[in-house]
């Protein structure tokens, strides 16, 4: 089954604003990870949240996880032009090391 569906597909915001994107998944997970990908480049790991955690912070990033709703959100505060990228959630199931990626949210931060 397909895991990790993000919404919105695309988001355009002004520099300084916050960006919020959501991820939903279908089966029980061990952890959920968020990645950033600049156009045509590699995947940069942003943050990992375990299934027994509800919220995690890293710099300007805030991730929440609601396992009852099978959903997660990524908030980028005080966005910068350099935050322009695609953001993907990826889920890992218990005893399963592979990641299942969503289609991603493309974020454009306007200067």
């Amino acid at each position, binding site marked *: 089954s397909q895991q990790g569906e993000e919404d919105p597909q695309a988001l355009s915001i002004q520099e300084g604003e916050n960006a919020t994107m959501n991820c939903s998944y279908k089966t029980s997970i061990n952890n959920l990870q968020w990645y950033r990908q600049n156009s045509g480049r*590699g995947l940069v790991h942003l943050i*990992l949240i375990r299934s027994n955690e509800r919220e995690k912070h890293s710099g300007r990033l805030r991730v929440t996880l609601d396992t009852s709703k099978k959903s997660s959100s990524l908030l980028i505060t005080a966005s910068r032009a350099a935050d322009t990228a695609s953001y*993907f959630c990826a889920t890992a199931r218990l005893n399963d*090391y592979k*990641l299942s990626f969503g289609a991603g949210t493309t974020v454009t931060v306007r200067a």
Partner: protein
Amino acid sequence: EPEVTQTPSHQVTQMGQEVILRCVPISNHLYFYWYRQILGQKVEFLVSFYNNEISEKSEIFDDQFSVERPDGSNFTLKIRSTKLEDSAMYFCASSDDRGWVTEAFFGQGTRLTVV
């Protein structure tokens, strides 16, 4: 900071030819993976490798594909008889064994173009 490195960054090959994509995982990592991303689409899992053997593979990873860890540092993906639809970005990733939680580190990718 340690990183996963992939070579080449871009490979153009003729349909039907064999290609080998190379990866150097992070040195103390034990699990290795290949993923691919067709332009504009999701990142898809291909194969995972642990203890010198394939631990899991997806439906995409058919007989056309093979992986190898020929020495202590490299991890390769071979695609025999490439097809046009193999054109994609191929990502190598590695993770360590931290019990039930693993964080995968990805390389910059190899863009494969089959013409």
